[in-house]
């Protein structure tokens, strides 16, 4: 059991508050991503939705590896790809219909501030175990609880082992699929360039 700096009742209450804030954050930014006029702003809202989901993986699914992958692939990769596609498809692609042309939305800034607040709350609440991610990522041995049962905690060694043994075929098929997707998209765009 971790030792917290604040009373446990207050901690439980704050946990519920944080969950509510996170849910409102995720669902609100998802709603705005599908409803704001500017498609460019919609992609920015999607970034915040992905970051909120990443925090949900970290806080409630007890998985720091999914937190990292979600940020790298979704919030970092796919959204930048979308922004490139919007930029390359001309100015008229940015707005679905006649929309307001504002450079920045105050709600976007508020969303960023909320995210910083949640991250700082998590960090402060975990002061008891400093270097919060390091123990999870480096521990190799299985954990045992007080009754002697093995707890399969989030240990990256298990994940790596399972990727190379149990799920090896799936990962290979996935790699072939991604290769095919990459070659296919390159072919799609290249063919059009040659036609023009």
């Amino acid at each position, binding site marked *: 059991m971790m030792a917290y700096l604040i009373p446990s009742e207050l901690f439980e209450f704050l946990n519920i508050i944080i969950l509510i804030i996170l849910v409102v954050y995720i669902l609100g930014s998802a709603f705005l991503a*599908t409803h704001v006029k500017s498609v460019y702003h919609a992609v920015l809202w999607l970034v915040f939705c992905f970051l909120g989901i990443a925090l949900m993986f970290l806080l409630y699914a*007890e998985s720091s590896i999914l937190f990292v992958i979600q940020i790298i692939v979704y919030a970092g990769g796919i959204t930048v790809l979308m922004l490139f*596609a919007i930029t390359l498809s001309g100015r008229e692609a940015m707005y679905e219909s006649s929309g307001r042309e504002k450079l920045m939305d105050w709600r976007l800034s508020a969303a960023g501030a909320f995210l910083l607040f949640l991250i700082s709350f998590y960090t402060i609440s975990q002061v008891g175990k400093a270097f919060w991610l390091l123990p999870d990522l480096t521990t190799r041995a299985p954990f045992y609880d007080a009754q002697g049962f093995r707890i399969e905690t*989030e240990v990256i060694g298990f994940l790596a082992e399972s990727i190379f043994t149990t799920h090896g075929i799936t990962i290979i098929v996935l790699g072939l699929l991604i290769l095919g997707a990459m070659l296919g998209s390159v072919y799609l765009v290249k063919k059009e360039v040659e036609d*023009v």
Partner: protein
Amino acid sequence: MSFDSSIFIGIALMLFLIGFAGFIRSKSAVRMLIAIELMLNSANINFAIFALYNDIGLVTGQVAVIISIALAAAEAAVGLGIILSIYRKHGTVEATSFQSMKG
């Protein structure tokens, strides 16, 4: 502190519904892709939460989420390639304006 798993399934369901509604009502092809990503993310939340709250093992669910994320990345790459190709051919990315397969 752990919450009941139904809370997270409810969150995932609402996220899926938001994505579905966005997919139905949007005209822009890019926004349709955004809605698809939202629906995929709700499925990812379900995978991670079910892995934690069942005794099948945390690792299996996490591998499923990793596979799903990789699939989403491939799908986004192909989708955006198609969108660019359509833009070059039709000059627009509004999904209502290229309906040649509709007949």
